[in-house]
Structure formats: C-alpha cells, structure tokens
C-alpha cells in the first residue's frame, strides 16, 4: 500500500481485529463468547482513568518504571558512527519487558472475575512475569512450557515454582513454544468459564495483539519523552528484536506516525535464513497463513503445515509473528532484517565488555544489527534500541556455545 493512502498508522486494528489483511479471530466457537467479552472489557478499560491509575501505580512501585534511556558511550565510540541509546527495559522487575503487559492482563482478569490464569512461555520470561503477578494478587497460575524448554531453562522453571505457579511440561507435537501455546489454548477451551489466558506477545486472536501492544507501548512513550529531554528531538532510527514482537511493538507504536523515524525489527536468523529453514525469521523467510487465532507470516511448508523455528534464543523460537508487524512489513512502514545466532553471540559479549550490561540473547539480536549499521551512519544520527531483557537466564546457554564448562 503506498504511503500516502494511509493517514495514520495508529488506527489499527479495525473492528474485526484486522491490520490490513492480518490479524482476525480464528478460534473455535467455544472461545468466541469469551474473546468478545474480553474485547468489551478491554474497550472499557482503555479509556477508564481508574484502570490506568492502577497500572501507573504498579508500573512505578512494583516494576520500577520508567526504565532509563541510557547513552551507550563506549558502544558508540566502538562503532565510530551513530549515537547509540539503550532503552533499559531489562531493569524491570523480573528482568524483561514482559511484566508491563502481564500487569494489564491480570488487572483485566480480576475485573472479569476470573480466578485462574494460564500462560505459555518459551524462555520462561513471560512465565516468570505471569507467576510473579499471580503471586502478588493471589491467583492460581498454570504455565505451559515445551518439554525441551523446561530442560534448557531450569532456573526459570524453578523461579516459577517458587512463585507458586504450576509448570506443565508440554510433550505434544514437538514440545516447543508453539506446542505450549496449543496446550494453553486446549486448557482454555476446557476451563473457559473461570480461566483467563494471559498471552505473552502481540499475537493470538483479536483483541490480544492490540491489547498487548497498548500495554507495552509504555516503552515507546517513555523513550520518546526521554529522548526529547536528553537530545531535544526524536531518534532517527529505532530498533528492537522480534520473536512474537511485543517489545518491538511497544517501542515502535508511539513512533509510527513520525514518518522521519526509521523503524527496524530484527528477527532471529538462527543458522542463516536459507532453504534449510533453521531460523525463526517469519517475515524474512515465511509467508502468510493462519495459526493461533490470527493471520500473519508463518514458517510453513507448501501444504500449510507449520514448521519449527530454530534459534539460540528460546524467546524468539516461534514460527509466527504479531499481525501488526506483518502489516507494517507489507506497508513498508517498518523494515525487518535477520541476525544469526553467531552475530547475536558476538554482540552479547561486546555489550558485556564495553557497557557492563549482560543483555538477554533476544536484544543481543537487535544490538548485532545496531553494530552493523551504526559505523556507516553520521555522528549526529541517533539510534534508540530496546534492551528488552537481561541475560542472567542465558549465561548457561552462552557458556555452552562458547565451549565453557560451568
């Protein structure tokens, strides 16, 4: 769609939950009444000052917002080009951006009278955030996690159990994040009357993609104000990593109508985006399809069977992407690139060495792309990257890849 046909990129989704052709409500009939009820509740909450007052209070006193916008001086020097700023969402309570969204959904769940919360998790960050907020509010919490991820993310599994959550290892299908999401949906369809499904990313049936985006948009809103404070202007380029795409959507959304701001999403290229399909780059290497309640770009074979993603980062290991990203991709408003495991690992180490920040593997992908483009850009060009999670959870995986025995 040519740029001049769109008045604003902030109007999506439409009343059917569509961003252009993407999004929608592709769920079984059992779930439809609940999804419509959720939409109603969310529409009300969106403009309810009491709802946002509660969110603001929790964001400030429980999560520790606003997160700093930090000028990464030594990374900037190292690159010798654009100024690099990091939005420090890794400093949030529980160590990632995930909790921004979980708080919003749990407040809604309480308003809807739901007493049992379910969630899916890959790396465990969304699971930990959900278990945390459930503990705070005294709600029963069940987290579905691929059996393979339970094995490789033991510290987060233990955290969730400490927080009182039941962690269910998922062995159906191939036991990965998408199978965890399938099993969460199966639980939901079975326990629809008392259960709220707290989805961790900007995907799933409408209204989840829009709702999760709105809860994460605090990232971009803060970044915009902080950049004005520190530089007196908007950044030239904003960058974030994408699995399902919630941290990226949160950073991007408040900037969508600032047409002079270049927007770049970084997908997980795994071992390389080629015909071997050992990656999770849905936009770079997939095509449109329907899964988990929405139409979006998916990794799939010619028969429409879903393929497994592959990435060093369990948090990016999903064969789809949020529908709004699919739309921003097709309209050309945002660019999407892929970074390999190797490049992400190099960026991870450089960030530790130069900034004293151990990043999660997910934002290490975004940082790797920053390191690629910053040297070519002028010194007055400003890049803002979302450091969406800290790397404590990843040190075992990184050690293994570096051949270090712990």
């Amino acid at each position: 769609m040519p740029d001049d046909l769109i008045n604003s990129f902030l109007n999506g989704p439409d009343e059917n939950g569509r961003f252009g052709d993407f999004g929608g409500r592709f769920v079984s009939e059992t779930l439809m009444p609940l999804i419509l009820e959720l939409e109603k509740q969310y529409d009300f909450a969106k403009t309810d000052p009491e709802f946002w007052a509660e969110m603001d209070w929790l964001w400030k006193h429980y999560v520790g917002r606003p997160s700093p916008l930090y000028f990464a001086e030594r990374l900037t020097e190292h690159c010798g080009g654009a100024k690099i700023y990091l939005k420090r969402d890794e400093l949030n309570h529980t160590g990632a951006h995930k909790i921004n969204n979980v708080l919003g959904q749990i407040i809604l769940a309480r308003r809807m009278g739901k007493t049992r919360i379910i969630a899916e998790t890959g790396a465990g960050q969304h699971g930990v955030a959900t278990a945390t907020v459930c503990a705070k509010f005294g709600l029963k919490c069940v987290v579905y996690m691929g059996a393979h991820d339970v094995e490789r993310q033991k510290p987060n599994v233990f955290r969730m159990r400490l927080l009182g959550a039941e962690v269910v290892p998922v062995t159906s299908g191939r036991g990965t994040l998408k199978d965890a999401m399938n099993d969460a949906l199966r639980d939901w369809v079975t326990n629809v009357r008392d259960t709220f499904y707290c989805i961790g990313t900007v995907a799933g049936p409408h209204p989840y993609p829009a709702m999760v985006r709105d809860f994460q948009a605090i990232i971009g809103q803060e970044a915009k104000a902080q950049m004005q404070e520190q530089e007196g202007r908007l950044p030239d380029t904003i960058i974030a990593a994408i699995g399902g795409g919630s941290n990226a959507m949160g950073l991007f959304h408040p900037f969508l109508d600032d047409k002079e701001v270049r927007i770049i999403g970084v997908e997980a290229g795994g071992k390389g985006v080629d015909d071997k399909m050992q990656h999770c780059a849905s936009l770079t290497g997939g095509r449109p399809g329907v899964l988990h309640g929405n139409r979006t770009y998916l990794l799939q074979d010619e028969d429409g069977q879903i393929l497994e993603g592959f990435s060093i980062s369990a948090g990016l290991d999903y064969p789809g992407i949020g529908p709004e990203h699919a739309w921003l991709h097709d309209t050309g408003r945002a660019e999407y690139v892929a970074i390999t495991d190797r490049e992400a690992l190099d960026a991870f180490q450089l960030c530790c060495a130069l900034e004293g920040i151990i990043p999660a593997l997910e934002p290490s992908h975004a940082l790797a792309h920053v390191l690629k483009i910053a040297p070519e850009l002028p010194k007055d060009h400003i890049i803002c990257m979302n450091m969406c999670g800290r790397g404590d959870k990843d040190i075992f995986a990184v050690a293994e890849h570096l051949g270090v025995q712990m």
Partner: protein
Amino acid sequence: MTRIDDTFARLKAEGKKAFVGYVMAGDPDFDASLDLVRGLPAAGVDIIELGLPFTDPMADGPTIQLAGQRALEGGMTLARTLELVRRFRETDAVTPIVLMGYYNPIYSRGVPRFLEEAKAAGIDGLIVVDLPPEEDAELCLPAQAAGLNFIRLATPTTDATRLPRVLQNTSGFVYYVSVTGITGAAAAVAGDVGPEVARIKAATDLPVIVGFGIRSPETARDIASVADGAVVGSAIVKLCEDQRPVADILAFVRTLAQGAHSA
C-alpha cells in the same frame, strides 16, 4: 440438495438417528486409510467425517493429535486427502463426506482452488474448527456458493444472543459440541445435552448432531436419543493408534452405529 441433505431425508423416512464416524485421512498411511474409509458405510456410518491432518490441532486431544502426526509422517497432505476422497467415490456415490480440520492448509492452497478440487473430489461439507462466524467471508460463504455445506460448531458457551449468528450461515447440519473442551476428553452426558439440543432445534430446522466425549455404543444411543445423531471420533482413532486390523476397527464401528441407530 447435497448428499448430506439426502442422507437426513432418508434417515427421517426410516425413523432413524444418524451415526457419524470420524477417521483421520492417511492414518497410518494412504492405503490402510482408504481401506478403512471404504468399509465405514457397510459398518453403519451414515456420514463420514474425514480428518484433514494438521501440525497444530488446537481443539483436539492427544488421540487425534497423534493420528494427525502419523498421517503427516506417512506423507499425507491436503492434495492426498482429496485423492483419497476421489478413490472412495469410485466405489461409493452416496455416503456423504465431511472434511474436518483447520484453516491453514486450505488457506495455503488458496480458497477458490481448494473449493473447486474438493467439490470435484466428492466432498460434501466442511467443518473448519478455527473459523467462527466472525470470519465467514474467508471460507464459509465461498464454500456455500460452491455448493458445499459449511457445518458450524455450536458449544455450551454459545448463548442465546450468539446462537442466531452461529446458525445464520450454517448448512447440512449443526454440530453440537457436548462439552467445553477438546476431542476425546470429558464424557458427554445425555441429561446435560438434551436441553441444549432442544434449545438449538427451537432456533433451526437443520438436524443437530452431537459430538465430543462419546466413546461407547451406550453413550452413542443415549446421546442420539436426545438429538438427530451422534459423532464418534477419538474412540475409533484410538484403535488405529493401537494398530488394530481394519476388520476389528470396523467391527467396533458397527457396534457404535447400532447404538446410535437403536435410539
């Protein structure tokens, strides 16, 4: 009039309830699956529900998930599933076949192309779990225009305000899902199902068939007695999982059909 409409007209004339049997296409391979499907009408199956394998069957329990995986591992695709129907039609021109599955393989093939091929192969109706009325423009309306029935699921959460919307573009029959849950899970109870079926029948002239949680001839009879028929899926597919010979599976199907027909 489709084969589905003809079948219900015949059953009505005979004063009988319908028995609908589900099997997964290509489980465990094309030839064995074709043998099984060919044997279903003689075992008393009035309408064949043929599962279209998919990697991510969100509404199905473990039994049907595993059947789909076996079929996919055996090389089953949408094209091969249609081929199976074509082969079945060589020897049976009357038994309706309803394809049941998820939208992505159909979307991936392209809706117009799929509808043309499905019709040519001899499919009579579609049940697509992840297409609620809100998404009717995707496949439901084009399918009806192409002369295929689009059979909708109604569930215990489909309340009075929503029911008209669910019934609006439904044809062939209404599939009432007896429990909130996945296939092969909780047991259906005729005492709970009866009033729900009555509620739906008050709002439509279409036959109402009940599925999910029916696994014995007795339950098939009890459920069929409060509806226009009963569906059994997981209990049949389980025998495929146990690698039972086709003759054994058909013998079990016969007892289920007798149960439903005795209602």
